[in-house]
């Protein structure tokens, strides 16, 4: 079963200087019990995608086409306020970059974890027991004693682990993790990744993991999509995308990652050029202005070319693209 299935989703924002198309025909799915990564640089539409899933688009944002099917039944683009609120936090949980967004600074951690369970019929003591169990799962030492403490009494890494414990408390079917490790040091980052992986298997939920850090995606995710200027330019299993990337943007992005360079380079690879103006999208391929393979065909919208089963690249030149970034 597919937990989340997004089909042809387009989102526009009304701005003073005209409509800005933040997402164009985005299709992706999150299968049951899988971790799907979303990779892309600033301005690629990652945040808009999450907000669209959560029904939290700004007032001037509008879904102009497509649907977001959750568990095959609910279309999240048409769900009314209360129904959406019921899903959020119960069936769809989120973890953000800044754990303080999820934690109320003036309430104890125990109180907040009890409050999340307002739906269940457990007694107060049973709820606390469940909170302690969750805190143990995210490896907070002395969980019983720490239940009475307030968020500021925990370190940054611990706060993020508590936020994860709270998100997974109600055993959601989908966890959306939006750059949850970006603000953390590398040593903490790897512990959070390992923790997420372990908990996902225990609980059996699906995870949509957003990150700009390629290494983290490679390590954690089963499948991934690559976004550029509001479009999914490539998608597939993590292995396919990392080892056999076919969209020129993906190839360039991978080549830029300094983690790939094991020796000191005289010049680091970059992607020359800038994002297109989303108020005035180019005809056809969205990456053509920065792509050395671009030719006349690229002024028509490229198809989602199937490279291998489940591995798609939105490009006219998926054969020739293997030349790009080969030097790195």
């Amino acid at each position: 079963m597919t937990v989340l299935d997004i089909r042809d989703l387009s989102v526009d924002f009304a701005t003073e200087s005209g409509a800005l198309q933040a997402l164009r025909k985005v299709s992706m799915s999150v299968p049951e019990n899988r971790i799907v990564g979303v990779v892309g640089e600033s301005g690629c539409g990652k945040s808009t995608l999450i907000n669209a899933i959560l029904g939290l688009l700004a007032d001037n944002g509008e879904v102009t086409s497509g649907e977001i099917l959750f568990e095959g039944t609910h279309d999240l683009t048409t769900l009314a306020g209360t129904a959406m609120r019921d899903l959020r936090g119960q069936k769809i949980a989120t973890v953000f970059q800044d754990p303080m967004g999820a934690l109320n600074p003036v309430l104890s951690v125990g109180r907040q974890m009890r409050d999340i369970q307002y739906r269940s019929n457990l007694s107060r003591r049973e709820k606390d027991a469940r909170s302690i169990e969750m805190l143990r799962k995210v490896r907070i030492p002395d969980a019983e004693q720490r239940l009475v403490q307030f968020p500021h009494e925990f370190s940054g890494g611990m706060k993020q682990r508590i936020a994860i414990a709270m998100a997974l408390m109600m055993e959601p079917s989908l966890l959306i993790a939006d750059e949850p490790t970006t603000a953390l040091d590398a040593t903490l980052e790897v512990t959070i990744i390992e923790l997420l992986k372990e908990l996902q298997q225990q609980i059996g939920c699906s995870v949509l993991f957003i990150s700009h850090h390629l290494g983290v995606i490679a390590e954690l995710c089963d499948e991934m999509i690559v976004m550029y200027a509001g479009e999914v330019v490539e998608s597939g299993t993590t292995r396919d995308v990392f080892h056999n990337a076919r969209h020129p943007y993906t190839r360039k992005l991978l080549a830029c990652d300094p983690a790939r360079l094991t020796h000191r380079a005289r010049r680091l690879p970059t992607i020359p050029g800038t994002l297109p103006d989303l108020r005035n999208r180019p005809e056809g391929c969205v990456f053509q202005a920065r792509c050395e393979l671009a030719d006349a065909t690229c002024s028509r919208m490229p198809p989602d070319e199937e490279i291998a089963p489940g591995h798609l690249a939105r490009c006219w030149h998926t054969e020739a693209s293997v030349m790009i970034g080969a030097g790195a």
Partner: protein
Amino acid sequence: MLRLAKIWRIVRRIVREPLGALGLGLVVLVVLSALFADVLASYPPTKLSPADRFAPASFQHLLGTDHIGRDLFSRVLYGGRIALSIALGATGASLVIGIMLGLIAGYGPRWLDNILLLVFDALKSFPTVILALTLVTITGPSLMSVVLVVVLVSVPGYARIIRTQTLVLKSAEHVMAARSMGAGSARILTVHILPNVIGPILILASMDIPVVVAIEAGLSFLGMGVRPPTPSWGSILNDGFANIRDSYWIVVAGGLPIILTTLGFTFLGETLRDLFDPRLKGRV
């Protein structure tokens, strides 16, 4: 040129809101009528004409006359001059003093900050009316004493807001960057801090103007502000109050401009605040 275009854009956004348009209209009306009082008024504001006492509104006297036959329309126009100049002068003076003290308290050494905070608290804890009465008793009723009361009452509020924001910005990266370049305190305060803290306080000040108008009118009503025969909305109101039973229009002439001015500045200030509220700014 750039600045004019910017002001024009803001004006257009104000006018788009119904209350903003009403507020701006009223403010423009009040300001223009005060500016051109000598053109618009058909009589000198202090000219007595005992023959025309208690004349109701007519084409000769648009708002009627008072108990000693002065033309109320002319008095209202000239009263507007007094009210606005006190309001703008006192608010402007409070702003300048408040901003300076706030910057010093926020950026200066800790001990100075503590002393200034103590002074602000002491001033704040004094009830406005008592402070006003005390001052007027000492200095005697005059324009200056009204201004002084307003300044003493509003400086602590402005200074506290500026101080808090300065404290936040003091350790902001762009301020650290300027320090690391060798910029002195004066440059940091005027170039790197002031432009970033002044916006909210200007909006607050525009909403304080009606308060000052009311204070001036109130003190003049009590005979502690502007001294007769200088026209003031407060003293017109007082004149009318004594004769309210048979000449209601005198109270109307004194009260109406106060109400319109207060509403105008309040609507305008609120619209400005909504336009510049940082919480609404994030929306694309």
